[in-house]
Each structure stands twice: as C-alpha cells, then as structure tokens.
C-alpha cells in the first residue's frame, strides 16, 4: 500500500508534524510505500539544525532512511528563506510540486492523510 501525507503545519508550534511523521514511520515499518508532501508552513519541517534535534528533524531523517519520498514546495521554501543548503538532505523540491502531488494522490497512493 502507498500512503500520501500532506503536511501544512510548522514544527514546534504544532504537534501535527510529529504525528504525521510517526504515522509515516508506522506505515514504513509495515513495508508500505510513503510519500510526504510539505507545503505552506509544512516546508519548515525540512529545515536542518532544528532544536530540539530529537523532534521533527530526527523523525524526518528516519522516514527518509526507511525509504519515504519527501517533497517540499519550492515556492514555499523560497518565501520562508529556506535555501537548498539549509534543507535536510534527500528532501526533493520538484519544479512542478503540485503536479507531482496531484498525480501521486490520484494515481499512485491508495490513501491520503492531510495534517
């Protein structure tokens, strides 16, 4: 099974990113395919050097290690001053983020979870 997560919340001020990533890890441990789409304030989850390091950044890296595909919306990254060197490695920022996300939601994933 493939699950798509759409995450629009920033870390720390909301617990939704941790909930999202813990869900994602649970699916990954059950051998599901996982894609995580970070948009609007959700792109801040992809910023490296977060304190506490044990929070969202660690969960995101673990999800990537277990094979999750993580995409961050380029326009939202730029709007928030998150350049490529400030991002967690392996997070992708495709030119057509919305097209990638819509195609995944409609054609590849069996379930969509929005947080």
């Amino acid at each position, binding site marked *: 099974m493939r699950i798509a997560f*759409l995450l*629009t919340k920033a870390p720390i001020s909301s617990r939704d990113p941790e909930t999202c990533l813990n869900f994602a890890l649970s699916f990954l441990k059950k051998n599901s395919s996982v894609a995580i789409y970070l*948009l*609007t*304030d959700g792109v801040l989850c992809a910023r490296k050097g977060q304190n506490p390091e044990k929070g969202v950044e660690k969960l995101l890296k673990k999800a990537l290690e277990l094979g999750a595909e993580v995409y961050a919306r380029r326009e*939202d990254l730029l709007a928030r001053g998150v350049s490529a060197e400030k991002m967690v490695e392996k997070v992708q920022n495709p030119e057509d983020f*919305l*097209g990638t*996300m*819509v*195609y995944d*939601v*409609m*054609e590849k994933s069996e379930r*969509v979870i*929005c947080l």
Partner: protein
Amino acid sequence: VDVCLAKKLLLTLWRGPYASQYADILWQIADKALDMGYHVDIFLYMDAVHGMKTLQEPKKFPNVGEHLKQLAKRGVNIVACSRCSTARGYVEGEANEKGVYPSSQCVEGIRIMSLYQLPELAKQNERLITLTG
C-alpha cells in the same frame, strides 16, 4: 480527458481567506488538477465560506473570490455549507427545490447547500484532500 471518465478529486477548506495560505493553496491545487484532466469538487466549510463573498478587494493577496469564480467557470462544482453560511449572514431565504439557498453576496457559480452534501460528494470522489488549518 472526458469529464465523465476523469477521476474526481474533492477539496474541502475550513479556513477563511487572507488569514492564512490555505485558501490560496486550495485554488492552486484545483487549477493544477483541472490542468491535468481531473474533475474537481470543492466544499467550503466554517470560515471558508467567506471566500465566496462578492466585492473582495485584497490589496496584496490574490483575490480568493475571483479565483473561485474562475474555477466554477472551468466546471468545478463548488458548494458552501448552508449552516456556516447562515451563521455568517450569507443566506437570505429558504432553500429552493434543489436544496440551494439564496444569497446576493455570493460570487457566481457557488451554491449554498446543506452539510449533507459533503458525504454525498465524498462518495462520488476518488480522493479527498482536507485543508483544515
């Protein structure tokens, strides 16, 4: 893509315009899905019904009402919750035989209908994206 054969995507929005990015991401996702040949339905709930108001004139932000109007022109079925709309002063009478409530403050192409339309739309669509904020 033939609309009858196209897969359907339902988008629900809970947040009002201009207070956050959610209303903007809604019409951007809808536009993209239409460009890709999918059918799109939109359900406006809670403060999101303010997005349908006529005469919006934001100075710095995209005009959400105008974007919703353009989406309706492209064939998007946009429904606003009647209870939320009534609470916010948009409903100006009883529903007609099709269940649509009258409003002179609603941009063209948006229908104010019962909340029970939401599960009906969910049943008709292959995928649901909720933008709750």
